[in-house]
Structures are given as C-alpha cells and as structure tokens.
C-alpha cells in the first residue's frame, strides 16, 4: 500500500473544494436536535461524508468492514437521503476519533450485530443534512427559493437550472448546517430495502483490497513473535544467537511475555523466530487439561451457582412432575480462525504513533497504545484496514495484538508489522469459552414443561475487563446466559431456576460470533426437542404450543417449517430438525435436513426464516445468514480445541477443520418484514444451526448428541 498517497488523500480533504458534513448526534438525541457543525471548517476526523468537485460521494464509516457489509449498508443510508448517484458512492474507514463512537455503546467499535440498527438514524441524517445544504447553495446561486429546488440522482434542479452536487459542494460547505431535518418516509425509499450489491467487490475480486497484513511501506519491518507455548507459562531466559544468523533478521527484542524477531520480510522473521532458544516456565499447577476441566465443570453443574432466574417453587413442582428429564450438554473452547491471521503494523515517530490494522475496537486500541507509549490517545492514529474476518477476535478489551505490536515497534526502534502464523493465531487464546449446561426439566401430564432447573458452568468473557463494571450485574455476566435467561420457553414455564458458575482459568476467552447464544441456543433447543420426544409430540407442534405468546418466534418457525416441507416426509435416509432462537434483536428459525454418509453427518439443506424487523439490504441479510450457517456448522461438526498441560493441541486447519465447499448445505433464506424494532443480522443465524442439525440427527438415528462438535457413536 502506498501510504504517501493515502496520506495525501486524507490531507487533501481539508483543502479540497468539497462539502464536509460533520456533526455529532448526542446519545439519545432526536434528529431534530442534531448539533450543527461549528462554522469553521472541520478536520476530516469529524466528517461522515465528503462530496468532491468531481461529484464523488465518500462516506466515512464508523464501523469496520469485516465481511458483514456495513461498507455498503451505511452508504445506502446516506445515499437514500442525499439523493445522490449511487454509482458515485465510495466508502472509507473513519479514523479513530470520539465523533465516531458507537451511538449506543459509546466507543468506536464494530460488534454485537449492531452497525445497521445503531447507525440507521445517524447516517440517514448525514445524507439529509447534506442534501439540505446543497439545495440551499443551489437556491442562492440561482436566486430562487429553496422550495423550488429538487434534488435527485446527484443533481439539484429548479426550473431550467441544473447543477450537479460536485459543482455545488464548495458553496454548500460555507453554509450553516440545518438545525433539523426531516427523514424520508420509508414508503418513499428507493435504495433502502432493495437488493444492493456490495461496494467493496471491485477491490476484493482484483486483489487490490488492503487488509492489515498487506500494509507495506519503505522502512517497515516484519516481526514474528514467540509466545508462551502454554497458558500460564512465562518467559524465562532466551538465546537469540541462531535467530540472528538467519539472513534478513535484524533484531530480536523481548515483548511483555515473549520474544519478537524483526526482519526484512515475514519468511526471515519466521525462520528466526523458530530458531530462538527459549526457556519457558511451566504453568502453575501444570496447566489445564480438557478432560479434567470438563469433569470439574460437570461436577460443578450438579451444584447451584449464582442466581440468574428464580421463579416459582422449582423443587416442589419438579417433585410433582409426571415426567422428569435430565441432560447435560458440553461445549469446547473454540478459535475464531479468521482467514486473515492476526497482524498489526506500528510506526512510532516522536510523540506520535500510527497503527495499521484490521480492528473491531478502535477506541480501546487507541487508548491502550497511548498508555504503552505514555502519550495521549489523540496522538495515536489508527488506519483501519479491511478485516480478513473478525467474528469477535479483533475486538479484544486487552487489544492483545495491537498492544504487542506497539511494544515490539517501540523496542525495535523501527516501524514494525507483527504477523501471526496460523499456529500462533490458533494457539494464541481468546477463545469461545468451554461450557457445560445441566438441565432438569419436569413435564406435566400433557408433556409441557412446568419446572426447569438449569445450571450453567463456564468462564465469563467480561470479568476482569474494563467492561465488567458496566455489564456485570450481581456477579452475572449477561453474555454467559443470553438466550437462556430470556428464553421464550422459560417464559411459558411456571417454575424456573437458572444459575451460573463462572470459574476462572488461565485460558483467555472472548466473544465469538453470537457469543453466549452459541451454547444457550443449543442447550435450550436440544432440551425442548428432548421434551417433545418424551411427550410423544411432533417437534414443530410442540414448540408452536409453547410459543403461543411469542408471535414472532412462532411465525419464523412456522415459515421455516413450511418452506422446508415439514409436513411431508423427507427422502429416504434423511431427516429434518429445527431450532428457533432470538439474539441481537432478531429471530432466526432453521430447519436442517441431514443424512449420515459413511458414518458422518451430512447436512443437505438449511431452510431459514429471519425476522430482523426491517431488512435494509435483503441481499446482504441473506449473505449473513448463509455465512452464519457455515460458521455455526463448523462448530457443530468440527470445532474443538483440546488442552493438555495448558497447551492447545490443535494448530492449523488440518487438525481444527472447518466447513469446506463440499460440506456446505444449500441454504434458502426467507425474510419476514415484520416492521418490528430493527435487529442485527451478522450473528443471529449462527447459534440455532447446531441444535437444528443435532435434532435432525436424532430424528434420523435416535442418537441424542449432547456434546459439540457432534459425533455419532
């Protein structure tokens, strides 16, 4: 990448004769209260939109593009109100600055399947403000009333007068932004709600898209880091003699808990790293073993944890239940395994620092980098590159991969790009935590649940992070029980007890696409399926009866079942299973059709119904559902990290398999435009695929598989 060119583009913003719309909508503010921009020209850091003299429209994204399509979706919001020519719209990642803080979460970040719903007002307002200023600029030029002017397709028209946005941008910029704008009635939308293809396709099909790992500039060195081989191990002495002999290796520097080899290029750095001789201390207590840990979790699951839900007299009702079911479900640690291994480039220049990386967590990275360097956050510039997958791994409260790169660049005294190998990435921690659920369900004489006793055991993701104070309530990490504490099935059950154990371990954990729902959905939808079977009822009819008070869940499930042909038997040797789950404000139902081939589970089709309220771009929603199915299916069929002595045994895609082309089912997505409050789509289809498949496997084989990944016996 040509940094000088990028820098030029950036700096040209301040001098170009273009319109810069910049303002900040305070949290919770209504559109009419949008703050006007100060009269003086604002720095580009405050801008959401630029209109160039060449009619180009550049939207600055407060959210990172990691595949989910915000690069297109947020631009659609601006363009809808701006009435510009869609073919002239381009996007750029915004720099890290307070003005780009997430409208709800308060820091600049991408996550929680929130970009679309959280920015829906702000980005449309940006477009509306700019249109207002362009019209007023045109009216002043022609000496007519703005009311006579009409803006469409990037052109303002009044009678015979006509000027493109590019020709009006400079004059518009000199005007005071409006105090309030009226957003369009959804009925008048031309772009929103339609199937719009992605704006980032041209660069991503020609190899021109720049990811963090692609950052190159003169003087930039590449580092590969030796990190502790086991969680809990610490750096002892190291000998860099052999590493320094590798051609291309220039420096060897210690990090916080490792050793970095800095070289001319990746290959030399990797050979150098592999040639290091390091004494690592053994982890305290010998380190975690998966088998032992799971036995401990199962034992804990037989004891009550911290109270999450407690309603009715569970023990009494359970004692009087006609049928009692007890099941335990088990979930391993999972790596995110994004296609692009972690990396981060850092250049330190006096009291300034520049960072190039694919990150979901700009504000946190900026603050942590500034602390390491002893400078203020505003002195840290973050260039957000395309993310070669995020899935939560690139939103780390510890900023591990950024912090380490800053430390290496500082120690090396040269600009450095730290690149992780696949093995480094897979063994580097911050996993979806391992969990065990134990459920006791008491059913009445009609087979309906009347008592539910549920114990969850697994590490908290937010304990010990800066988010603990904000998110933890009464010792409960809400991400450990999301999708369970609020399960519709428990709402319709009279006596419910849910409790949580959050053991602390040396294994770093993190949010993983769909977070807690990845295990709660499986436990709930498997147990409900078990209950339906125990009641001798059809899985669909059983669920529909329980979801009477949940019309959106019921509608999604009914639609998926109908489209999957639930009422007609599948082909011989196949069976179907279902699951419905609400997360991130959206409801997803899947029906999976499976067979067993050569002892392996084969998923042929997945029929999905999705209610995300309003689908801003159905083409993108469908892509997210297809992708979430693949991601969730990888966990259902393959995903498992195994620890021995605190060391992760898996290392690469040969022993941590993921879904490949031949595993991929045909996925059909049906959208429900319910008009309900808008939800997210990046994650919600991930969690319910595993239980849908497991329930289908049960229907086919009568084997109830209660551990992920699913393994037939």
């Amino acid at each position, binding site marked *: 990448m040509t940094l000088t060119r990028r820098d030029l583009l950036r700096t040209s913003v301040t001098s170009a004769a273009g319109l810069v719309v910049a303002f900040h909508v305070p949290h919770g503010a209504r559109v009419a209260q949008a703050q006007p921009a100060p009269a003086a020209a604002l720095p580009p850091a405050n801008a959401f939109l630029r209109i160039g003299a060449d009619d180009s429209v550049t939207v600055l994204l407060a959210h990172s593009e990691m595949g989910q399509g915000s690069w297109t979706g947020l631009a659609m919001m601006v363009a809808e109100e701006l009435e510009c020519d869609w073919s002239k719209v381009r996007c750029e990642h915004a720099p890290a600055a307070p003005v780009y803080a997430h409208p709800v979460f308060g820091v600049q970040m991408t996550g929680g399947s929130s970009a679309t719903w959280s920015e829906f007002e702000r980005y449309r307002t940006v477009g509306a403000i700019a249109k207002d200023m362009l019209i007023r600029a045109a009216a002043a030029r022609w000496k007519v009333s703005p009311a006579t002017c009409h803006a469409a397709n990037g052109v303002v028209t009044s009678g015979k007068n006509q000027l493109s946005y590019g020709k009006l941008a400079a004059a518009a910029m000199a005007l005071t932004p409006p105090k309030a704008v009226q957003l369009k009635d959804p009925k008048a939308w031309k772009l929103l709600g339609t199937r719009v293809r992605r704006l980032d396709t041209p660069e991503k099909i020609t190899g021109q898209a720049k990811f963090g790992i692609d950052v190159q500039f003169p003087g930039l060195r590449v580092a590969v880091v030796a990190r502790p081989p086991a969680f809990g191990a610490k750096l002892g002495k190291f000998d860099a003699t052999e590493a320094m002999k590798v051609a291309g290796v220039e420096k060897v520097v210690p990090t916080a808990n490792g050793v970095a080899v800095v070289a001319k290029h990746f290959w030399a750095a990797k050979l150098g790293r592999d040639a290091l001789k390091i004494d690592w201390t053994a982890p305290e207590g010998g380190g975690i073993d998966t088998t032992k840990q799971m036995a401990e979790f199962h034992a804990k699951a037989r004891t009550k944890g911290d109270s999450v839900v407690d309603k009715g007299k569970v023990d009494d009702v359970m004692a009087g239940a006609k049928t009692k079911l007890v099941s335990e479900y088990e979930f391993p640690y999972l790596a995110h395994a994004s*296609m692009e291994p972690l990396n981060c480039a850092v250049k330190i220049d006096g009291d300034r620092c520049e960072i190039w990386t694919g990150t979901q967590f700009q504000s946190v990275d900026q603050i942590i980098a500034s602390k390491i360097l002893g400078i203020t956050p505003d002195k840290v510039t973050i260039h957000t590159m395309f993310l070669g997958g995020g899935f939560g791994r690139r939103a780390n409260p510890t900023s591990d991969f950024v912090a380490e790169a800053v430390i290496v660049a500082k120690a090396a005294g040269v600009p450095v790009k730290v690149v992780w190998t696949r093995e480094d990435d897979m063994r580097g921690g911050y996993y979806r935590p391992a969990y065990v659920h134990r459920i006791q369900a008491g059913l009445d004489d009609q087979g309906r649940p009347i008592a539910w006793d549920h114990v969850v055991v697994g590490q908290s993701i937010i304990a010990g992070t800066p988010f603990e104070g904000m998110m933890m309530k009464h010792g409960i990490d809400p991400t450990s029980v999301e999708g369970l504490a609020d399960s519709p099935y428990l709402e319709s059950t009279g006596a419910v007890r849910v409790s949580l154990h959050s053991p602390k371990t040396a294994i770093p954990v993190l949010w993983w696409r769909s977070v807690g729902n990845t295990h709660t959905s499986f436990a709930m939808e498997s147990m409900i399926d078990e209950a339906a079977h125990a009641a001798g009822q059809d899985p669909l009819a059983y669920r529909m009866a329980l979801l009477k008070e949940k019309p959106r869940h019921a509608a999604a499930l009914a639609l998926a079942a109908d489209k999957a042909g639930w009422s007609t038997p599948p082909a011989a040797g196949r069976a179907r299973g279902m699951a419905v789950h609400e997360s991130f404000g959206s409801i997803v139902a899947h029906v999976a059709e499976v067979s067993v081939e050569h002892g392996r589970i084969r998923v042929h089709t997945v029929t999905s119904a999705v209610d995300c309220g309003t689908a801003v771009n159905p083409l993108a929603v469908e892509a997210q559902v297809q992708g979430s199915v693949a991601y969730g299916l990888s966990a259902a069929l393959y995903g498992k990290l195994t620890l021995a002595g605190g060391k992760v045994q898996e290392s690469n895609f040969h022993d941590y398999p993921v879904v490949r082309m031949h595993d991929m089912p045909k996925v059909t997505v049906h959208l429900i435009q319910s008009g309900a409050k808008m939800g997210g789509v990046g994650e919600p289809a991930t969690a319910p695929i595993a239980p849908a498949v497991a329930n289908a496997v049960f229907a086919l084989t009568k084997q109830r598989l209660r551990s992920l990944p699913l393994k037939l016996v």
Partner: protein
Amino acid sequence: MKLDINGSVREVDAPAEMPLLWVIRDLLGFTGTKFGCGMAQCGACTVHLDGQPVRACVTPVSTVGNRKVRTIEGLSTDGSHPVQRAWAEADVVQCGYCQSGQIMTTVALLAEKPDPSDSEIDAALSGNICRCGTYVRIREAVHLAARLSRGGAK
C-alpha cells in the same frame, strides 16, 4: 533469480527455500495473494504456474524455474475477467480475504472443465476455505462464470 510473473520478468534476491508466497508478497509487492495457513490447507495463496493452480505457501521459489507465475493481479485489474464478473454479479465476497484464492482456483477449474458439475466444483474448491461462508454464492458464481466464459448470455 528471475521470476516471470504477471507478464513481466522480475529479478528477486531470495533464498532458494523461501516460499513463492512471500516472494510474491514481501519482495514483489503483489499482496492480492494471501497467507492463511502456511501448509497448503486453506488455498488463500493459490496462484498459477503455467496455468496450473498451486499453493504458493509451500512452493519453494527455487522450484518455479521458468514457469509463468500468474496471481490475481495478473487476471485483470479492472475485474473484467469472466470469473471476476461472475463474482461481482453473484455478490460473492464478504470479508474478501480468501477470494483471490477462490477465483484463481476457479479459473484453473474452468480451463480444465468449461462446464463443471456441482461435484466437480466441490472437488476443485474444497481446498479453499472461506470462514465467512460464501460457499453458496461461490457455487452460483462458478456456474455463472462457466456461462460467461463460454460467451453465453447471463
């Protein structure tokens, strides 16, 4: 040594065992070819040697000889290659990181099998991992690219 890459011959100073991937990326600056696994498991580094798809991450540069190296940048820079056009039409990409490899594998597949069946697509593309799960649209795009390559209507 000399490397014939994307139509021009470049002089590179690299150790014999250095994988072609890192020569392409770090020494020649063609960053469209990606690093994903380093052991021929994911296909992100797929390039062509005389039209044959290879995993550049496990191909020592010294073994390339005078074979012609073609990377994604050598396909077309404006997205006009039929496979690229099909990818755009089917709106395949998500994060995009694996797509250079997916496209290069597909180009080689279509050269061999102009109208591949689903099982031939499975066989050819199972070596290319996509964590975003764009497989459904990749399959659609491969069929579309086959039609475009044959000059058929969309």
